């Protein structure tokens, strides 16, 4: 009986694989490690975690109370060490909810060491940050708010600050039922707000749902290239156009590390703080990517595949912002001449020999992955008030 079930399962699996290969015109290319999910439209809203329920509404509909609280917190510098920098400073709505310097700005007195990624559609990702190190927005928010070159906040201080803003006390109570704001709830509200920053109705999504006129004939050709000759789909697949797997694609080191002292400080700091043994600490000059997670040599330089949505607004590109335009990105893959520092560079990337027209088509397709710009005004954040003015003495 058991053996029968096993055979049945195996047969079903093979069938599914064959079906995918048939519909998705996917072939296991040379060096292809896996079967790639097909391109697909985004669901109407990101998955809502059961332990942080919120509205399923996304921009531009009206926010629910939790999202609204998260909206305030996202723009509130109380969520940082010196009360001087908010989430929105590195994830700026005017800069595609990211940051337009190649290497993101950092906490005052510091710089970051990687490119800031857009908050838009982040709710659909399972692996967040370039190292994919957190698996929820609820975990991403504290990692950013508390990191020394990001928010540099301590929980004690940030939570206490929220408790001295009567407006926050009221809102947290309404949303979470707590007598006093808790920083963990603040992070949950920020996550709910970030899920609101979703864009499931791009021209690409409309096209995939059957509106054949939603994207231009050029873009359709671009999509064919994406799935075929250019083989982007090998890693950029599924509704978010990322397999959320890890590759070293040989992006060059950013010039900032050579030229700016403050970038060198942060580079060494990251290398130190992420846990380095003596040799690594002394010799590292390039970003070792997810090697930092498990210190396996075969992970050196690998980073999580970037999603391609909203890229119209999120230049510059790559984990260190070394490519300034989509054209440069396409050229990078076309030439396939990235550096192989550690013998880890993926075999998937090969020269593509794209014509000028093909490159233009590809770019046209990439642009269909962005809708209108998501614009929200900077909200007025709640003020502090002396507790005696609004809290009865106990």
């Amino acid at each position, binding site marked *: 009986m058991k053996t029968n079930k096993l055979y049945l399962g195996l047969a079903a699996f093979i069938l599914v694989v064959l079906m995918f290969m048939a519909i998705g015109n996917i072939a296991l290319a040379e060096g292809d490690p896996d079967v790639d999910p097909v391109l697909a439209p985004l669901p109407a809203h990101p998955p809502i975690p059961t332990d942080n329920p919120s509205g399923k509404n996304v921009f531009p509909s009206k926010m629910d109370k939790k999202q609204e609280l998260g909206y305030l917190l996202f723009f509130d510098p109380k969520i940082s060490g010196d009360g001087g920098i908010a989430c929105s400073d590195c994830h700026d709505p005017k800069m595609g909810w990211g940051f337009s310097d190649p290497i993101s700005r950092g906490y005052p007195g510091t710089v970051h060491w990687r490119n800031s990624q857009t908050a838009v559609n982040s709710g659909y990702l399972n692996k967040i940050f370039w190292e994919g190190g957190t698996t929820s927005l609820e975990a991403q928010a504290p990692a950013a708010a508390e990191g*020394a070159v990001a928010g540099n906040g*301590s929980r004690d201080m940030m939570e206490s600050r929220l408790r001295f803003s009567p407006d926050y006390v009221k809102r947290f109570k309404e949303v979470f039922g707590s007598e006093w704001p808790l920083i963990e709830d603040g992070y949950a509200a920020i996550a709910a707000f970030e899920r609101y920053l979703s864009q499931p109705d791009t021209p690409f999504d409309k096209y995939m749902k059957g509106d054949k006129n939603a994207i231009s004939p050029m873009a359709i050709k671009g999509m064919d290239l994406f799935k075929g000759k250019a083989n982007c789909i090998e890693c950029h697949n599924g509704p978010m156009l990322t397999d959320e797997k890890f590759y070293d694609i040989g992006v060059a080191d950013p010039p900032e590390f050579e030229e700016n002292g*403050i970038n060198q*400080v942060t580079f060494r700091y990251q290398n130190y*703080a992420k846990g380095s043994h003596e040799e690594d600490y002394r010799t590292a000059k390039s970003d070792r990517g997810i090697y930092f997670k498990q210190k396996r040599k075969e992970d050196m330089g690998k980073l999580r595949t970037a999603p391609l949505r909203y890229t119209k607004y999120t230049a510059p590109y790559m984990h260190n912002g070394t490519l300034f335009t989509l054209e440069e990105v396409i050229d990078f893959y076309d030439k396939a001449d990235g550096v192989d520092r550690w013998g880890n560079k993926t075999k998937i990337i090969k020269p593509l020999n794209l014509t000028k027209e093909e490159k233009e088509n590809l770019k046209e397709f990439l642009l269909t992955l962005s809708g209108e710009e998501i614009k929200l005004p900077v909200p007025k954040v709640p003020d502090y008030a*002396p507790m005696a003015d609004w809290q009865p003495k106990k």
Partner: protein
Amino acid sequence: MKKVFVSLLLLFTVVVVHAADYPDIAPLPERKAPNPKQVELGKALFFDARLSGDAAISCATCHNSEKGFTTTMPLSEAYPGSKHWRNAPTLLNVVYKGRAYGWDGRLDDLDDFLRDMITDSMNMNMDMQLMQERLKQDPKIVALTLEAYGDKNMGTSKKGEMTHYVARNAIIQFLETLTSKNVPFDKGTLSAKAKEGMALFKGKAGCIQCHNGPYASDGKPHNTGVPENPEVFKDPQRHFTYVAYMMFMGVDNRMNWRRDVGYYAISKDRKDIGKFITPTLRELKHTAPYMHNGVFATLDEVIEFYNQGGGEDRPGLKDAAMKPLNLTNSEKEALKEFLQSLSGDPISIPMPKGVKVEYQAMPNWKGVKN
């Protein structure tokens, strides 16, 4: 005759018991002179804003080198985005303290306490690893460190390398230089009035029960009933900074305290509410205002406070030793004269102007070892 004998015996007993209770107040002992190069490095770091998280403040922001290594404000400044709820204690003679650092005596080791002053969110909010890498970026600091520590094992793989531990050690060497100079009490040049004050200090006024030893402090927590500084609870930034500290220390009921719990934050024993570590009395001339929250602007106010037996507190909290002293005006003057004789020449180091927070790029970045 018998009565006189009994009285003498009693007096003798009292003196002996007291002598066993606490050491006499005494001149500061000599300390080994610190290495001048290490002092030079420590001094540079003391004024260096790169030691704070957002590179906005240095040690000297709250321990002003032109104002007795404290400030004249009752309540101290703090890290940007917060405000302190206590007075900044002077760093003069702090190397003599040797225990119970901070108003609530949280730590007994100066290096540990200095580390927390740099890392605490309300003080300098600095990540030690980031601080180390910032300092390693400065060729002047790197060169000075090699000179100062090149022949000393500081636990680094190569001697003379800047680490956060070396940085703290150098600052402590600088603090070694911040000791009293030309103190009348230490030199034995007390005026007649100051001598009278000293007798009161050790006798009728009983100050010596807590203010004893060369540092003029027993290093222990006491509740003298110092009134609260209302500014702490009027200013939400001070109040939330205090709440954040209570959260950090795990104090219960932290949203409802409307007083500084003091040593209770450390011991969590309710009888310790409102206790603060006895401060030194040295260099009082240069370190007003006084008490843990700066509520007294002058020594006269402080003396009057003790003359009245201290302040008010709930039964059982205030130290039993606090009783009205019934000092005459002339006695108060004498006491003040003695207290002032515990201060030496002003120690003032000009605040360096235009210290730049900047980081030069290392030439040959890829070629040098980190």
